Structures are given as C-alpha cells and as structure tokens.
C-alpha cells in the first residue's frame, strides 16, 4: 500500500484502460454461481463489481453489480438480487473479503430455498476478468486548488483510476485525491471529509467526475471568502 503523499510531491495524473478477458467459467444456477465464486480469480470478483463502470452499460442500472443483476434478470430471484445489490465493495478493499461476503449471502439464500433457480442456456453468467493498463498522462499539479480545473479535463477512465482503483492500492484504502490532500499537514481535512461522502457506486464515471468537480469548486470558493 502506498503511504500518503508528502506535501512537496506533485499529483501525477494517470489514466488507465481495461482489457476484459474471458475466464471460461460460467454458471446456470445458484449452486454453480457459488462454486465459481469460490474458485474464480480475485480479478473477476473485482471486474463484476467495478468493471461495469468501464464497459458498455445503460444509464441508471437497477443493480450496481453484475451478480445482483444476473440473479434478478436470469434467475428471477428478486430477494437475493436486492441482498447482493446492497453489498458495498468499498468496504472490502481486499477481494478475498468481498468474495467471502458474496458467498455468505449466496449460501444463506441456498439454505432458505427449497427449489434451485435455473436460467436458460443463453442467459448463463459468464465470469470475466480484466487486466488494467496504467499510463502516465505527463500532466501533474502541485497545488490543491488546481484540482478545480483539472478534474473536468480528466477522462472518465482517469477518474476511475484515481477515485476507484486507488482504493486497492493506497494506505487506508482511500482515493488518490484524499491520499494526496492528507499530505498537506491537515490543511484540507474538511475537503477530504466531503470527498469521503461521495458514493461512487451508483454513478456513471461522467456523473462522478461532475460530482468531484462540484466539490472542489465549491470548497475553494467558500475558502476564498
């Protein structure tokens, strides 16, 4: 895990692209889903919770992870879909912990059910994993105030890298912005608190970028008064 950045360090703006890969694993009923979740590589769990933000999907999905969506639309088990939809992956930066939570919920539902829900052959759940390619944009900022103009100019995938992917690699599992701002000797604690309240899970990346831009703009406007 990376330590919080020191004050003198610049914030390097990076970007990323995701390559999606088939795992060959698939499930047609809940027991198969449980078995595959047990053994599939952690990258696949990550992809099905977070990868949705970087792949084709329609605005405002009812469920924010692929497991919940499949259980609802292919297995038609709304109860389980709602329970799976309530999992907040930001609480589980370690994918093994997230996997355990997922398994607990599925096991609980299997215990409750007398009949196993099945789906058709053409509606199976296909486990996908991904490789993330991270590259440097050669842009950087030195002052926190520069975030106001930088955020709107970032690509959606750059927002993903700094605000979501960061939680897997920073000290305290926080986004890169807070990680950097904490290095200013407590000067931006208030701003970090506002950032901590952002729930990235239901937004598209474009909406998330706007939300972050609004927070930075408002904060520095207030502090100018």
């Amino acid at each position: 895990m990376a330590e919080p950045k020191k004050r003198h360090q610049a914030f390097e703006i990076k970007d990323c692209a995701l390559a999606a890969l088939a795992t060959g694993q698939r499930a047609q009923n809940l027991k198969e889903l449980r078995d595959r979740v047990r053994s599939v590589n952690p990258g696949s769990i990550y992809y099905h919770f977070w990868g949705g933000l970087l792949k084709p999907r329609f605005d405002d999905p009812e469920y924010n992870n692929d497991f919940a969506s499949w259980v609802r639309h292919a297995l038609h088990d709304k109860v389980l879909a709602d329970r799976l939809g309530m999992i907040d992956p930001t609480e589980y930066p370690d994918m093994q912990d997230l996997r355990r939570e997922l398994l607990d919920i599925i096991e609980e539902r299997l215990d409750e059910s007398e009949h196993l829900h099945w789906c058709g052959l053409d509606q199976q759940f296909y486990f996908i994993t991904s490789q993330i390619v991270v590259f440097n944009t050669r842009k950087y900022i030195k002052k926190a105030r520069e975030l106001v103009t930088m955020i709107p100019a970032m690509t959606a995938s750059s927002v993903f890298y700094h605000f979501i992917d960061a939680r897997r690699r920073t000290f305290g599992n926080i986004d890169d912005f807070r990680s950097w701002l904490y290095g200013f000797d407590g000067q931006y604690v208030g701003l970090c608190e506002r950032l901590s309240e952002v729930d990235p899970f239901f937004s598209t990346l474009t909406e998330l970028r706007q939300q972050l831009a609004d927070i930075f703009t408002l904060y520095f406007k207030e502090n100018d008064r």
Partner: protein
Amino acid sequence: MTAILSKYAEIVGWDVIDQLHQLVDPLKGIKVVHVNSTKQGGGVAEILNKLVPIKKELGIDVSWEVIEGNAEFFKCTKNFHNALQGNKVEIPHSLLKSYEEVNRQNAERLRARLEEAEFVFIHDPQPAPLLSYCPDRKGKWIWRCHIDASRPYRAIWKYLSNFITGYDASIFSLAAFAQALPHKEYLVPPSIDPLSEKNIDLDRQEIEAVVGGLGIDLDRQIMLQVSRFDTFKDPVGVIHAYRLTKKFVPSLQLILAGGEATDDPESQTVLDEVRTAAGGDRDIHILLLPADAHRTINALQRAADIVLQKSTREGFGLTVTEAMWKGKPVIGGDTGGIRIQVVNHQTGFLVNTPEGAALRTRYLLFHRDLLLEMGAKARNFVRENFLLTRHLREYLTLMVSLLHGRGDRIELD
C-alpha cells in the same frame, strides 16, 4: 494532430483522442498486419477499412492483407460460419483439403510480411491455418472471431481449434462466444465509424433523392432491415412481421436491403426464398445493393420509421449499431451481440418471433414521442460505447497487455 483525428475528436471529445495517443506510445515502431478474406462486404471488411487507416494516423506501421480463395474454399468457409453458429454441417474431406491448400498458397505469398510483424491479427476462420505455415514467426498472433460461436457444431470446432490453439491470444465479441482455448481470450465488441459514408450525417434533400429514386414513398411509413440475405438474419420472418403489422397500418412499406459479400455463396438461395415469400406485394422492396452502396444504406436507415434486425443468431449486428447511431430504436432478435446494444424499452426491443416484432413495430408507430426519445437514447449509447475510437482503444490495450505482462496490472512508465 491530423485532420482525421480532429474530426473524431469533434464527435467523441479530445480526451478520448489524447488517450489513444498515450496508449500508442509504447507501440511506436512495431509492425502490425491484419488478415481477412474479403476487401469489401460484411462487417469485418467494414471495420478494417476504417481501423487500419486510423491506426496509421496514430503512427502504427499497419497493413491489411486479404487471402485469395477459390469457389471450393469459400464454400468450405461458409460451412464453417454456419457450423460455428450451431448448424450441424458435415463438410466433405475434399473441401477441407481445399481450405488447407488455399491457406498454404496464401502463406507462400504473405509469409515474409507475416513472419516479421510484431502483431498479426487473423480475422475469422478463413485465414486461421496461416499460423501453421509460418514457423519462423517472431510476433504475437491473435485470432479474432467475429462470429457467434456460443454453441458451435462440435465436430467442426474441433477441426478448427487445431489451427487456433497455437495462437498467442484470441478475441471474441462477447464472453458467451468464447471457447476453451489454451491462451488469453480477450473480449472486444466491434464498432462503427461515425465518419464513414454509411454513418455521416446526410441532409434531408439527399435522403429524399436516394430513397425516392429507389421507388419508395417517403410520405408513407417505412420498415427496414439491412443485412445480407442469410437465413440467420431471418428475412422471411421480417416479411411475416410486416404482413402482421400491415393489417393495422395499411400504408406500411417494407425494405429488405441486402449487400453482396464475395465470401457468401448461399446468398442467392436465400434471396430466392425471400422473393417467393414477398410474392407480388408492391410495398415490399427487395434491394440487392452493391457492396459499396454505403451512402444509400445510410439514407435508407435515416428515412426508415422502424428498423429491424430480426436475426436468430448474430455475432454482433453492426446494422443495429448503425441504426441506433442515426437515432432509431431497433427491434432486434434476442440473441448474441444484439443483446448488449438493444436495451428493452430503452434503446429498442428484443423479440423472438415475427409476432413480437410486429407488436413492437405497431407500438412504436403509435407512440411517436417514445420512438424519438428511445432513438435519442440509442444514439447516445452508441456514442459512449460502440464507436471506432473505443474499439481501437481496446485493441491498443490488448497489444500493450500482450507485450508487457502477465499480471492483472500493467504500469507503463
């Protein structure tokens, strides 16, 4: 920044183009070759016609080779296509021999270029055996499958997989199409080019001239399906759906516009079936368009009130993407790649029968405001997900991924 990249930037934004430049950086100086079986006709040729020039614009040394085949070869590969889509097709040994021989001959012609390239992309089964005839290859070879191979006829898949297992990676349009192979299997949906003749904006005058010139009445409602004359596209089912709708909308016209692909020997048989099904109905327009009639197809898609793609199997369905880009909700077969484009009640409707297609057609013709609203959503969905720039980004990402690492994270300095 070149003029062409600036034009893309106007549509997708400068940030997207900047990102492509950054991804290309570690690939500068490498040689890339794409190989397929036809220069014109069908979705693969269309994608390559655009993907190759834009890769060049970005500074990659890329070329596109087309294998030359005879009638027996194309008969065999058409059977492969059908078999990969699930038909139980028995292919005579003599045709398989012809397939291998044609590949061997093409390898003689192309070997030097293929063996020196850092990346070779082989599209679909037609040129798949080329790898086995290039023993001194130095680069990464990637097999790109554009077909819905979710449930292939196993005997044929077993034969073809002998040629494919040796590749360094393969690409499928959807996870459901991926087959068990001993290498990385990337997932990359295809795309359309917003600047191509088929997709650029046309003014009303041109649309009226083109469509009117084909004997179609623009004052009456139009149902359209654009696709090859292929049984998997179910053109006869579309005629059935039209007849069911026409009872309620007597002025309705149907256009079935098909292109000719040089690698599809069955299209004439299907065309004959379609003509028989149409009978003497003067409101059914069967158009056999030349492979380069892109602007005509563009005009037809823009003139149509309802666009269908009632396929029973579909790799991706670029005609769906094209219609959505023109602001049309699509009534599509509930299969393959159509499913990731057509979101029920949002960007169109998924249907399984002619009755389903007819019902949704009537619904949209009745709810004009909804038709426009869904069309706007469809266009935006394509802008964000199915344009050439996204496709290119994923190709560049997988090339970087294959060059730089095995783990799930690759950090480029």
